[in-house]
């Protein structure tokens, strides 16, 4: 596939005897939303962590926009255009929502060896951050301490932080996990608004969300991709039904 922005080749990662990632190859095209589904313990978060640079694979390679990023750290990849949300919400709990997003803006606005001027008074940080909060629907909550936001709002905030880095690849680890029905519908609606504009890798358990959002779906079982393709194809795949979807239908 010539226009793949992300190419993963034969990625392997073991924890002791457990092969959490057992030779995964994956290609993601620019602008595509690629969902990764699979039963608990299939190695989905391990895969995302290797893509984001939080975990180093034992072998294999990750190429992004034609460049080998396998050995780059998480912050280095962030500057190449990776952004991620975590399965367990990861935000700055003791900062306001606006501070959270402003920090994400700051991280991509040159170095931060600026010692004197008050960062909270810099319009170059605050205004893009405020606009991003508006975009995810948290505009009215900008001044609230992140720890005091509702769970769903915290998830939205995390997505806002990821987007504020203007990423070329968005790695979302279960963005609607633990959300109420209404919250999760709102998040799915928001994410579908990003479709085509952003390249997204989405790990999700919520099948409604997956089949609404994904252009392609890969099914991960025991560290291997057993099927990959358009949502309808994957849903019809007998092996997938047996290994995974079967337990639901």
């Amino acid at each position, binding site marked *: 596939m010539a226009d793949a922005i992300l190419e993963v080749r034969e990625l392997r990662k073991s924890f002791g005897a457990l092969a959490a990632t057992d030779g995964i190859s994956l290609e993601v095209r620019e602008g595509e939303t690629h969902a990764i589904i699979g039963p608990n313990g299939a190695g989905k978060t391990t895969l995302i962590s290797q893509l984001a640079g939080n975990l180093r694979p034992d072998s294999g390679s990750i190429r992004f926009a034609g460049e080998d990023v396998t050995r780059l750290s998480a912050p280095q990849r*962030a500057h190449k255009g990776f*952004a991620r949300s975590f399965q367990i919400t*990861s935000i*700055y709990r003791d900062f306001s929502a606006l*501070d959270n997003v402003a*920090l994400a803006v700051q*991280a991509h606005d040159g170095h931060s060896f600026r010692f004197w001027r008050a960062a909270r008074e810099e319009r170059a940080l605050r205004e893009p951050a405020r606009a991003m909060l508006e975009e995810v629907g948290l505009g009215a909550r900008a001044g609230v301490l992140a720890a005091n936001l509702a769970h769903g709002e915290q998830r939205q905030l995390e997505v806002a932080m990821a987007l504020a880095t203007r990423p070329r690849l968005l790695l979302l680890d279960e963005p609607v996990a633990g959300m109420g029905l209404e919250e999760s519908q709102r998040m799915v609606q928001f994410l579908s608004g990003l479709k085509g504009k952003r390249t997204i890798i989405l790990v999700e358990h919520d099948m409604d969300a997956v089949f609404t959002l994904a252009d392609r779906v890969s099914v991960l079982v025991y560290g291997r991709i057993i099927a990959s393709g358009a949502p309808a194809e994957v849903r019809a795949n007998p092996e997938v039904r047996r290994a995974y979807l079967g337990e639901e239908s």
Partner: protein
Amino acid sequence: MRARTLVLAACVLLLLAVPPMATALGQLYYIDLIRRVMIFAIAAVSLNLILGYGGLVSFGHAAYLGVGGYSVGILAFYGVHNGWLQWSLAILASALVALVIGAISVRTRGIYFIMITLAFTQMLYYLGISVEEYGGDDGMRLKVKSQFSGLIDLNDPVASYYLALALLLGAIYLVNRLVNSRFGMVLRAAKSNEARSRAIGFSPYPYHLAAFVISGALCGLAGALLANHTAYITPAFMDWTRSGEIMFMVILGGMATAPGPALGAFALLVVEDLLAGLTQHWQVILGPLLVLCVLFFRRGLAGLLPGGGKHG
């Protein structure tokens, strides 16, 4: 927030009034006591930058008191009494030592960081003991205090009191500017959630190291002041219990607050002084008192001020 500003302004006025009041009452001792407290307050303010805002629990901050103190002492030993030179060296040497210690220790976290910073300070402590040239275990006397081109006479207890006060206020202002700048936001963000910082593209290491160096340099200045205050420099400047005391001032006063470390220094050293006047066994009273403080004032003494212990 306004009430808080008023309370703090009152504290500064009170400090300004100490020398005339002590002179009027014939209690010159208090000028000396409060000056010593303010010097330690500078050390605590410097530690707060990395401990309070950066979350780096350095258990070796007394090292820079020693490096700063010995910089003054050693230059004076060789007949260099120029204060500008002595104090610049104190700051530079402390920054350099902090750069070396930090380059290694800042890569670690938690208990390892505590142990490495402690170990380096112990090394410096034993270095101080072993160098006979500079008095070894007994230390060295500072026969002539730092000379500042006739601008200020450090032999005058009142003048050096006001110098210490000015430097303390300057240190608090400096650290407060730093922690609210972009640099400070990175530092505080990494303390709040390092994984998140890395994910949005901050590599904490260079920022932690820079903070460590700034903190050490500022504490070196306190060391230069302390050498002139005691007119005697000994390895005891770098004793690990001294590091513990400075850390305690920060925690007692309120980590990651602007006035906290100074409040902590005052509370600890003044209470220590009062108790020592009452009984020989003052430590038996001070210990439990400190435990109670930590248990009941979770946000430190700064948390008792109007406006609470919020950092911001």
